[in-house]
């Protein structure tokens, strides 16, 4: 039994971002009833109930957050708990994982949930021709065995201590075996809400199921209405005129108008979402670690947080591991803006001054071009002349990112360190946007593989802290800031004291966790 608690986090980074701590026991306040109307950005007319296609808040909140369940769930405090699985156990090498499944659970069409559903649902992601974003997770499983009606055993290609965390990924929804096509067409899951109507890119209405295994712990609303409002101003208007009870992604520029309204409160958490400037470490001059260090000292991180995020964020230390991660190195010494240090490192690289191009577009993140210009101004004092190249937003991810030696980018972050590193920092990974490999740091790549299979939490912490240090000192990605998840709601919508910080809107599980006063 390996349960990893992330309680420790609460006392540190996450708690700073959690507003409205009342100190009262939260479950005492929560009560059933009411209809929650939410205006959400991130909807598309091509949306469907196929978890493999889910990528933005609207469908994540409707899929994993309301209609469907996954095997495990990230609790708001960062700990992992069972959802459709009750408990799990690993072999000592972390290669074989046995999951016990919850008994007496039924799908919305009456079919009861069991081991076959798990196996068939996961196999969807590795089916021929499937382009599931969770394919790397499922393809790491070499064998899925039904060891009982309510028990499944997974054998992995290599040991992975984070495997139960991966099972909480919002793509890995559980469908009824043998009826998957129907379940995808109509939205048939085991979640707290069943689909009443769904118009892709427009609206979703759900009603509470009569009884559910989470009764008394979650699922307070009788009805849900999600309205797709991709336009920021329209979303803010809808909340101001009381057409909806809550919205995601507020516009910082007009935030003061929301604050002036006594019926509205704003809630924000700092998670792992981070904005970056990756450099290709195999291209000159970025192949010289001294040049990278000079750039790290040439950027004014606090200024970016103040001017680009308007304070809704926190400075970062050139690592992608953030406050929502378990082994976040919170007390690592912060890199500061220091033009003299920048000059010193340039000299170490044998240069008096440096002329480089920085490609940016607001497709990378809102305000990326402005951020590049601020960087340009601050780096100048350190002898670095940055030429900001404004790239077209169309095709940015195909033509600029991973291609231009120095550009702007963003990551929404990952629940676990290994997942984040193996997506973007492991040698040979397709999205390794700094081409970071063993030539840059063999130590890092070795630690990455070693830590993956390590079940001892203390040893893992040490390893992940060392890796964060390596990235801060030598890494090829400038990570100046973590961007908060900011949402606003009517004061009649109540939220628990601790809000999930892995993804927007309480990890997109607000439909289960929030309630009406």
């Amino acid at each position, binding site marked *: 039994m390996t349960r990893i608690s992330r309680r420790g986090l609460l006392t540190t980074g996450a708690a700073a971002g959690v507003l409205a701590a009342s100190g009262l026991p939260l479950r005492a306040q929560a009560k059933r009833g009411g209809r929650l109307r939410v*205006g959400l950005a991130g909807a*598309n*007319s*091509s949306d*469907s109930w*196929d978890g*493999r*296609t889910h990528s933005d808040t609207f469908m994540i909140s409707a899929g994993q957050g309301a209609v469907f369940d996954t095997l495990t769930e990230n609790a708001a405090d960062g700990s992992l708990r069972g959802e459709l699985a009750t408990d799990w156990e690993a072999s000592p090498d972390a290669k074989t994982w046995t999951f016990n499944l919850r008994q007496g659970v039924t799908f919305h069409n009456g079919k009861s949930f069991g081991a076959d559903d798990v196996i068939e649902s996961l196999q969807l992601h590795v*089916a*021929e*021709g*499937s*382009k*599931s*974003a969770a394919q790397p997770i499922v393809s790491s499983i070499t064998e899925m065995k039904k060891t009982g009606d309510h028990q499944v055993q997974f054998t992995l290609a290599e040991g992975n201590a984070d495997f139960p965390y991966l099972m909480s990924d919002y793509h890995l929804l559980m469908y009824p075996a043998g009826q998957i*096509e129907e379940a*995808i*067409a109509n939205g048939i899951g085991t979640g707290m809400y069943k689909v009443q*109507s769904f*118009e892709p*890119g*427009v*609206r979703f209405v759900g009603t509470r199921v009569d009884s559910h295994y989470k009764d008394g712990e979650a699922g307070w609303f009788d009805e849900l209405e999600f*309205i*797709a*409002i*991709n*336009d920021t*101003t*329209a979303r803010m*208007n*809808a909340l*101001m*005129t*009381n*057409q*909806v009870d809550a919205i995601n992604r507020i516009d910082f520029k007009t935030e003061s108008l929301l604050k002036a309204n006594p019926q509205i409160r704003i809630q924000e958490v700092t998670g792992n979402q981070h904005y970056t400037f990756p450099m290709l470490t195999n291209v000159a001059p970025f192949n010289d670690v001294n040049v990278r260090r000079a750039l790290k000292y040439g950027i004014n991180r606090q200024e970016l947080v103040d001017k680009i995020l308007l304070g809704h964020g926190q400075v970062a230390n050139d690592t992608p591991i953030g406050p929502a991660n378990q082994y976040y190195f919170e007390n690592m010494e912060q890199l500061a803006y220091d033009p003299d240090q920048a000059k010193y490192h340039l000299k170490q690289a044998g240069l008096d001054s440096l002329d480089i191009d920085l490609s940016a577009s607001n497709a990378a993140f809102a305000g990326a071009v402005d951020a590049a210009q601020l960087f340009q101004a601050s780096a100048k004092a350190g002898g670095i002349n940055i030429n900001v190249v404004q790239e*077209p937003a*169309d*095709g940015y*991810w*195909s*033509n600029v*990112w991973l291609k231009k030696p120095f550009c702007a*980018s*963003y990551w929404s972050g990952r629940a676990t360190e290994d997942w984040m590193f193996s997506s973007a920092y492991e040698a040979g990974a*397709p*999205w390794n946007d700094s081409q970071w490999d063993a030539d840059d740091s063999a130590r890092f790549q070795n630690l990455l593989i070693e830590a993956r299979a390590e079940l001892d939490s203390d040893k893992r912490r040490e390893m992940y802290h060392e890796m964060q240090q390596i990235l801060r000192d030598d890494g090829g990605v400038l990570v100046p800031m973590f961007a908060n998840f900011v949402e606003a709601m009517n004061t009649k919508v109540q939220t628990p004291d601790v809000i999930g910080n892995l993804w927007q809107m309480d990890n997109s599980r607000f439909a289960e966790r929030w309630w009406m006063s």
Partner: protein
Amino acid sequence: MNAVLKIILQRLALGVLTLFIVSIVIFLAVNMLPGDFAEAILGQGATPEAVAAIRRDLGLDQPLVVRYWDWLSGVLQGDLGNSFAQANFSAFVGSESGGNAGVAQQIAPRFANTMFLAGVTACIAVPLAVGLGVLAALYRNSAFDKAANVFTLSSISSPEFFLAYVLILFLAVLNPMLPSLSNIYPDMGIAERLQKTLLPALTLTLVVTAHMMRMTRAAIINLLASPYIEMARLKGVKPLRIITHHALPNALAPIINVIALNLAYLITGVVVVEVVFVYPGIGQLFVDSVKIRDIPVVQACCLIFAAAYILLNLLADILSILSNPRLRHKR
């Protein structure tokens, strides 16, 4: 009557030719934009293999001419095809069914919503504009005429989103009479639907009224200088009766034309208003589709837009002919 029929047939044939040319232009234009569907849909997650796989699945690796021909031959058989998003989705699911409806089924409900909004707007704007135009002509150069002109011209000169926000401010925020969100859906009652549609309809009314009103006023005033009007005035007919019975019927042709033009605008040009009010119309779908380079949907939308222009102009011409005996009866 035969002459009219001949004109209709001629114009329809020309219309089909226009649609054909429009489809080529749009196809080329969308292809000239940077990026394609595969790159747009994959975004940051694009790997060369995934891009190649999607291109292969959707036939995007075929030459331009072949792709255009495939699309055209489908349309000629009445099949608007499948949107790339849906085709990609079926390939994703590994099955053909997965909620797979063609472009036609995807567009139909959105188009119906757009027509509803255009209809409501037209019901308000056309009588208002013509009425104001007649009154402005009647009391020309009076304070009323000037006020009407200033008001309509300033509303047409303001950007649509600005008008929309001004209306939201006054009718939804300060005096909460109307909802600022026009999220209509199919199983909604007609009264609620009308209520939700009213704000966007009013915004569009402000946008299109000036043009129609000014044309009505100008056409009537133009005629008021004619000898036959002078004759009527000399024999003592009342000014309002002169306008409604003698001037207006002869001014109908230009008025009908400008109304048709504005109705076409209501169908094709409402994207901004749809976004501001979150109205699920065709404009939003169109913009989304251009963004992801979903050529089948873009093409279908453009054909609908072009057809709306062609048909409304044709209708306007026919009505002007019918309203004018000199054109109706060829010498």
